[in-house]
């Protein structure tokens, strides 16, 4: 895992930015996202609706907090949790042979397939780096971490 403070800052900006973006595009088209969730054929209409309304805001908040440095590790935990869930969901979808859009970034057409899993794994790595970094490495106010 990366322990360089600058690199961790870049990771936070990158991962947070992606989540804020993914959340915003879904907030703009909540019904399209609800249909995306429904197409996975795992939950019914009501749960699809509620998830489509709430999930994007959690993505936006977690992403924004990660970038801004508020509750960084809590935000990283939310993001890694979501990513693990997305990876399992995509694996299950592939195993069931469903040919559906992943709904990852709103209206951008992407099939729920291997490339989505690889992308999520890459993001998961960034999230785990932030989550597992010792406190002083991601705490900006306290200056540089001590060496050794």
């Amino acid at each position, binding site marked *: 895992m990366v322990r360089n403070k600058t690199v961790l800052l870049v990771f936070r900006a990158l991962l947070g930015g992606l989540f804020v973006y993914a959340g915003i595009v879904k907030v703009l088209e909540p019904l399209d996202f609800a249909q995306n969730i429904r197409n996975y054929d795992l939950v019914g209409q009501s749960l699809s609706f509620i998830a489509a*309304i709430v999930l994007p*805001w959690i993505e936006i908040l977690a992403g924004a907090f990660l970038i801004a440095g508020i509750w960084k590790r809590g935000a990283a*935990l939310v993001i890694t*949790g979501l990513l693990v869930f997305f990876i399992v969901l995509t694996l299950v979808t592939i195993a069931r042979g469903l040919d559906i859009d992943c709904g990852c970034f709103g209206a951008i057409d992407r099939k729920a397939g291997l490339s989505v899993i690889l992308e999520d794994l890459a993001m998961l790595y960034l999230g785990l780096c932030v989550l597992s970094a010792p406190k002083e490495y991601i705490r900006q106010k306290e200056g540089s971490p001590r060496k050794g």
Partner: protein
Amino acid sequence: MSEAGRILRQAMAIGALGLLIAAAVHFPLFKRFARGEFRESFFQASDFPGVRLITLEEGEELWRTAQASLVDARRPGLYGEGHVPGARSVPAPEAEKALSVDLLNLPREGTLVVYCEGGDCQSSFLLAKRLHDEGFKDIRVMTGGWKAWQAAGLPEERGNGQK
């Protein structure tokens, strides 16, 4: 408080905050959902003018009087096991690729009746949206689907031969 506990509480607070903001921002949408909108599909009627939901009886009437072309949105295997006589097979996932020339040659003003398996199947809605985007003006989704058709003891046709 332990570090792990602190992180967990932060994460839960983010979740709760997300829930609150979502409820506030999308309150009008929640109200529409509570009124019964979006119970069968998430499409907004205003975005898809010409797409309507119909009952089995209405679908049967359109089929009997040959006023509409029927379109089966299910997988080819299910279509082969039994479908509405004369219905074309256009599996919904394939509708995202190219629609058959046969279907595209139909007059855009004509009536199409789309159905899928039944229950809360989604493929007829997906296909209806696609057909709307192709310019079809009158698309009716038979929400009871194939199950309701079968349960009513209406005529069936088997095989994958396209009509």
